[in-house]
C-alpha cells in the first residue's frame, strides 16, 4: 500500500463520522452524505498521490463532498431549503483551511438521530456502527446474525426514514433527554452484546463488535461528560472487556466467571471502569447501566479480596430487577440468590419467569441445570443441561456444559 493510501485510510478512520455528521446535519440526508463522502475519499485516492496530501485533509474532503451533495439535492428537487445550508459548507471549509479551527462536531446529534424513536429498534445499532464508525454492512450483518442483503436494506430503509420524515439533527430537550439518551446507550450496548456472542473466542469467523462498542461509548463520554449513565455504560463494557482473556483457557475452553484466573483480567481496564463508576456516583443519579457496572465491580473485587461478595450482588440485582426487569437481570438475580439463600430459593425465582419467554433463552437453562444439580435432582438437571447445550451458539460453552452434565453420571 502506498503512503497516500495510508493517508486516505487514516483520514477516513479519523474523520468519517465527524464529516458525515457535519454533512448529514446540513442536508438531512444521511445516505446522500455517505455517497458524497465516499466519492470524496475516492477523489482523494486519485488526487493526493499526484498533488500530495493537503495540509487540511478534512477541509479538502468537505469541499469535495459538498459538490456531489448539492448535485444530488438538486437532482432530487426535494429539500430545496437544504441547498443554501450545503452551499454554506464551502464557507466552513474555507474557514477551516485558513485557520487552526476544526469544524463543529455534530456526532452527538447523529447518535441521537440513529437512536430516534422513529427508527426501528433493530436498525439503530447497525445504523450507528455504519454512519458513525464507517463499518460496512456485511460485517455488521455477521455480528448480528442477519442476511447481508437484508441488513443493507434495513440500513437503507432507516436512512430513507430520516430523510423523508425530516428527523432533526438536534439535541433532545431536557424533558426528553433521559429517554432519548437511554435509547442511544442501549444501541451502543447492543453492539457490545454482539461482541459477547463469541463466548469462548473459539469461533474466529464471527468477530464481535466489542471494540467498536467501546469506541462509541468513549466518543459519547467525550461528547456528554456530565451524564452518569454514559459513564455507567462505559464502565460496564470495560469491566466485561477486562475479563476477555480469562474467559477461555489456553486450550480455548470456556471458563465461567467464578473460575476465572484473576491474573488474566486486565487491571488497566478495571481501574478505568472503577474511576468512571466513582465519577458517575458523584451525580447522585443511579440508572440501570451504573447498577450493572456496580455489580461487575463487585465481581472485579475478587482480584483483591479473593472472594465474591454475593450478598451485595444479590441486593443490586434486586434493585436492577425493579428498574429494568430484563430476562438477563431476572436470571442473573436467581444466580446470585443461589449463592446467598440456596439453590431451592433461586430455583423458585426461575420458576416465576413465564416459561414461554425462556424457551430459547440459553442462560436460563444453563442456570436451571446448575441449580437442579445442586438440589440433587439429577434427571431434571441432565434434561436442562441438554436443553442448554442445544441452544448454545458456542462450541466452548457447549463443551463446558457437556462436561458438567457428564459429572452427573
Amino acid at each position, binding site marked *: 500500500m502506498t503512503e497516500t493510501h495510508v493517508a486516505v485510510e487514516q483520514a477516513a478512520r479519523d474523520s468519517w463520522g465527524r464529516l458525515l455528521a457535519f454533512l448529514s446535519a446540513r442536508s438531512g440526508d444521511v445516505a446522500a452524505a455517505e455517497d458524497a463522502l465516499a466519492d470524496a475519499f475516492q477523489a482523494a485516492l486519485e488526487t493526493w498521490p499526484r498533488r500530495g496530501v493537503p495540509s487540511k485533509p478534512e477541509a479538502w474532503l468537505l469541499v469535495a463532498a459538498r459538490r456531489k451533495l448539492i448535485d444530488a439535492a438538486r437532482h432530487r428537487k426535494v429539500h430545496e431549503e437544504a441547498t443554501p445550508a450545503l452551499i454554506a459548507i464551502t464557507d466552513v471549509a474555507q474557514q477551516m483551511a485558513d485557520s487552526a479551527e476544526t469544524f463543529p462536531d455534530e456526532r452527538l446529534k447523529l447518535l441521537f438521530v440513529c437512536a430516534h424513536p422513529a427508527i426501528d*429498534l433493530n436498525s439503530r445499532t447497525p445504523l450507528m456502527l455504519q454512519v458513525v464508525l464507517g463499518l460496512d454492512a456485511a460485517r455488521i450483518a455477521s455480528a448480528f446474525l442477519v442476511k447481508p442483503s437484508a441488513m443493507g436494506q434495513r440500513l437503507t430503509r432507516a436512512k430513507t426514514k430520516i430523510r423523508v420524515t425530516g428527523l432533526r439533527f438536534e439535541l433532545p430537550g431536557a424533558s426528553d433527554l433521559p429517554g432519548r439518551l437511554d435509547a442511544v446507550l442501549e444501541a451502543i450496548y447492543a453492539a457490545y*452484546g454482539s461482541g459477547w456472542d463469541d463466548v469462548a473466542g473459539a469461533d474466529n469467523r464471527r468477530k464481535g463488535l466489542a471494540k467498536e462498542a467501546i469506541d462509541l461509548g468513549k466518543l459519547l463520554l467525550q461528547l456528554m461528560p456530565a451524564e452518569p449513565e454514559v459513564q455507567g455504560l462505559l464502565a460496564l463494557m470495560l469491566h466485561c472487556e477486562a475479563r476477555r482473556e480469562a474467559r477461555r483457557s489456553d486450550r480455548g475452553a470456556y471458563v465461567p466467571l467464578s473460575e476465572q484466573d484473576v491474573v488474566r483480567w486486565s487491571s488497566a481496564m478495571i481501574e478505568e471502569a472503577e474511576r468512571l463508576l466513582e465519577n458517575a456516583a458523584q451525580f447522585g443519579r443511579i440508572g440501570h447501566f451504573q447498577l450493572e457496572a456496580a455489580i461487575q465491580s463487585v465481581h472485579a473485587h475478587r482480584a483483591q479480596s479473593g472472594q465474591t461478595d454475593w450478598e451485595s450482588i444479590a441486593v443490586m440485582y434486586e434493585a436492577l430487577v425493579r428498574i429494568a426487569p430484563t430476562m438477563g437481570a431476572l436470571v442473573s438475580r436467581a444466580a446470585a440468590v443461589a449463592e446467598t439463600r440456596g439453590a431451592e430459593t433461586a430455583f423458585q425465582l426461575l420458576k416465576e419467569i413465564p416459561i414461554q419467554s425462556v424457551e430459547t*433463552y440459553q442462560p436460563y437453562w444453563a442456570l436451571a441445570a446448575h441449580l437442579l444439580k445442586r438440589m440433587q435432582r439429577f434427571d431434571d438437571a441432565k434434561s436442562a443441561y*441438554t436443553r442448554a447445550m*442445544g441452544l448454545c451458539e458456542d*462450541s466452548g460453552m457447549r463443551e463446558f456444559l457437556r462436561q458438567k452434565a457428564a459429572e452427573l453420571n
Partner: protein
Amino acid sequence: MNVIILDAENCVEIEPGGKPMKYMLMFYLNQTEFNSRTDPKTRDAFWGSFLPYLRAVREAGIFAGGAGLEPPDTATSLRILDGTRLVQDGPFAETKEQLGGYFLIDVRDLDAALEWAARYPAGPGGGVEIRPTMTGPGEE
C-alpha cells in the same frame, strides 16, 4: 433490539413475533466431519453435541422434518445429457463440503432461522445453508 445479559457472560437477542415460514437448514460437512460422525474416537463428541441441538429444535416446536445423510461416496447421481440418461457414482457436484443432513423448521422469519442455524454445532470447516421453502401456485 433488546440485549439481555447474564453475569455479563451471555447475551441473546429477543425479537418481536411474526407469521411462521418454513426454512430448510442444510448442514454442510467436510470429509473429516463426515468421518467424525462414525469414528469410534470422535462419534461420542459429535452426537453429544448434535442430539441436544436436535432436541432443542424439537422442544421449541419448530421441527417440521429432517434427516442425516450417509457420506457423499454413497451417492448416486442421475442426469440427462443431450437427451441421454447418465447414471454416475458420487454426488451431483464434487465440492469440498457436501450436504450431510437437513432440518425443515417453521419459524417466523429469516432472522429466526439464522438464530437456529447459529446453534448448529458445526465443526471447523462446516456450516449451514439456510433457504426458504417455495410456495407453489395455489398454496398461498
